[in-house]
């Protein structure tokens, strides 16, 4: 099951509080293990904090995770009811697949999330918190993500945070070719955003980071200059835009600093782009005259407008995810549950294939796109119809239910034999 908060359910303030820094994840997973949750993965990014665990009881696991988080992060205990979601079995798999594919991201289709999920899984497996089941689930999730990326156009034209920021910059400054940018932090987000600004022709780039070496590396890569962290106040006088994405727990840039900077700048406008969670720049900075501050949530709001034309592609991507989820469940079932499920699925798959074949023979001049859509549509219908039956068998595998399924799906004599041998295996 999974318990989490994301940009869809919780405001940035709550997400900030629930952010679990990378270095404390192994400890957290150990604590969960001590309380009986053997397998666990923690995914904590700017936009979500999610904990995946393997547990027999959803309620119990929810309670344990809730307790641990409330204790560890010292926040009011009612956050879980207000902002979190908790999903189990199919819902949880689907959620993970959607997250990994970038379909649950703030900017739909963005590619960074897959790397973050991979990292989360890597951390968990080095902490020995993953077993065979989790390995399989996550590998399937990566596979689903890959399919979404290669088979749909979702990821091809990503409406990225940085392009939104560039557009805003051009509303404030017009041409950005004469403007200078300061980048605080040297992480992946900074790098991507900075490259984007560079591509749009930003005049000069300064990079600063707590670890100076990292700033130097990024500066070298994008042709900029690296500066020690302490120089930020002076750098603020030289630049027009500030892009910040550090892992700092407390804001780096306070309102007072910006106020005094603006006096020295004689009011020349300053545009802050804060893509860090927790935030690097105090939100009150936006109240200062000639200062514009956009945080990651603001950029999200704006990028929503681009979302509508992606809906069609998004539907296809969801169909892929559904298919992958079903495949995964099929595997789960084969892992040792009732073989009648496998038979049911094989049976409907045969029917489906036969019907698709018939239909495509009847249709003239079908192009590949239509065929693909037909495949997807039928698969998705079949899966949705079969799903409740599978769940029933899984919950209640009594001979009466199995008999009922057999007659419902007309599973014949031949299948009966397989079923028996399957029972023996169990």
């Amino acid at each position, binding site marked *: 099951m999974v318990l989490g908060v994301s940009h869809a359910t919780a405001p940035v303030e709550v997400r900030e509080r629930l952010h679990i820094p990378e270095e404390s994840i192994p400890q957290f997973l150990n604590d969960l293990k001590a309380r009986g949750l053997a397998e666990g993965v923690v995914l904590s990014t700017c936009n979500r904090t999610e904990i995946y665990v393997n547990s027999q009881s959803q309620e119990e696991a929810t309670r344990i995770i809730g307790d641990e988080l409330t204790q560890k992060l010292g926040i009011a205990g009612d956050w879980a009811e207000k902002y979190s979601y908790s999903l189990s079995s199919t819902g949880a798999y689907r959620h993970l697949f959607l997250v990994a594919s970038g379909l649950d991201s703030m900017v739909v289709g963005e590619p960074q999330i897959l790397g973050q999920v991979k990292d989360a899984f890597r951390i968990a497996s080095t902490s020995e918190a993953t077993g065979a089941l989790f390995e399989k689930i996550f590998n399937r999730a990566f596979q689903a993500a890959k399919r979404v990326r290669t088979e749909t156009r979702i990821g091809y034209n990503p409406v990225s945070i940085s392009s939104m920021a560039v557009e805003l910059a051009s*509303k*404030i400054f*017009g041409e950005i070719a004469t403007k200078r940018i300061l980048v605080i932090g040297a992480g992946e987000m900074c790098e991507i955003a900075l490259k984007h600004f560079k591509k749009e022709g930003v005049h000069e780039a300064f990079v600063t980071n707590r670890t100076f070496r990292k700033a130097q590396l990024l500066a070298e890569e994008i042709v900029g200059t690296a500066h020690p962290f302490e120089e930020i106040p002076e750098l603020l006088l030289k630049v027009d835009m500030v892009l910040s994405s550090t892992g700092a727990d407390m804001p780096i840039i306070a309102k007072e600093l910006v106020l005094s900077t603006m006096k020295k700048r*004689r*009011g020349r406008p300053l545009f802050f782009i804060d893509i860090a969670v927790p935030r690097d720049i105090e939100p009150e900075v936006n109240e200062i005259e*000639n200062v514009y501050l*956009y945080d990651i949530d603001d950029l999200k*709001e*704006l990028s929503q*407008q681009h979302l509508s034309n992606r809906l069609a592609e998004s539907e296809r991507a969801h169909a892929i995810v559904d298919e992958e989820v079903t495949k995964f469940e099929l595997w789960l079932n084969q892992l040792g549950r009732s073989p009648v499920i496998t038979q049911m699925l094989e049976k409907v798959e045969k029917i489906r294939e036969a019907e698709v074949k018939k239909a495509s023979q009847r249709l003239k001049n079908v192009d590949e796109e239509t065929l693909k859509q037909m495949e997807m549509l039928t698969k998705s219908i079949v899966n949705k119809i079969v799903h409740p039956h599978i769940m029933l068998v899984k919950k209640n595998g009594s001979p009466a239910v199995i008999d009922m399924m057999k007659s419902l799906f007309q599973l014949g004599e031949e299948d009966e034999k397989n079923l028996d041998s399957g029972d023996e295996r169990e």
Partner: protein
Amino acid sequence: MSPQTPLFIALSLYIISAIFYLVYLLNRNEFYDKSGYYVLLAGFLVHLSGTVFRYVLAGYTPITNLHESLSFFALCTAAFFVYLRRSYRIAGLGGIILPFIAVMLIWAISIPSPIRPLPPVLQSFWLPIHTIFAFLGNAIFLVGFVVSIIYLLAERDLKRKKKLHTIFRSFPSLETLDRINYRCMAYGFPSLTAAIITGSIWAETAWGHPWNWDPKETWSLITWIVYAILIHNRFVIGWRGRKTAYLMILGFVSVIVTFLGVNLIIGGLHSYV
């Protein structure tokens, strides 16, 4: 040819240009910017020739009554817009300023104004100098006023982080608007100052005293003080953006009172209408 005829032609061209610029606001297609500009240029040249034509017919600078003043105001505004267009990408502003120009000219044309002999009090070497400075200043401040309003609206949307309205996307960036505003004060203020100084020299010869506290004089002084404060704050304190925009708007309200309010409502030594 009646002296009105060129004005009608100029007006038609201004209206066509305004339509082009309004379409530009909606679709940001360069074609409409260019077309609007060339039609405006043609309108301006016809308007200018019409003004020269009236000068020839009348034998004096035709800025002596409301009809002539409004027409000249519109002419100056068109000239200043053409001037700005050469240094900034201001296509978006055309959709607002061109309608202003057209309305001024419609108003001017609606006031019948046969050419009459010039009243003796206006027969002076200072007439063209004083009035041209005054209306050049007015036109520049009108542009500053429009730019300031757009600035405030666009800035508010950016601060509130709202999706930018299509029309606001067509307007120049905040920085460009602020720079135009700066130019407006840098050119408008000296014009106004020159108009006041030449006016007082003329007043000394015509009325015997350089400053008579006539309503128009008083209001132009108020206007001058508003812009003086603005210039001071911009250069000395470093005001920018929103605050300067508010003062630009206030300044233009004062310009309107000086120009129209005094002529139409208050009266005084300056009313020749």
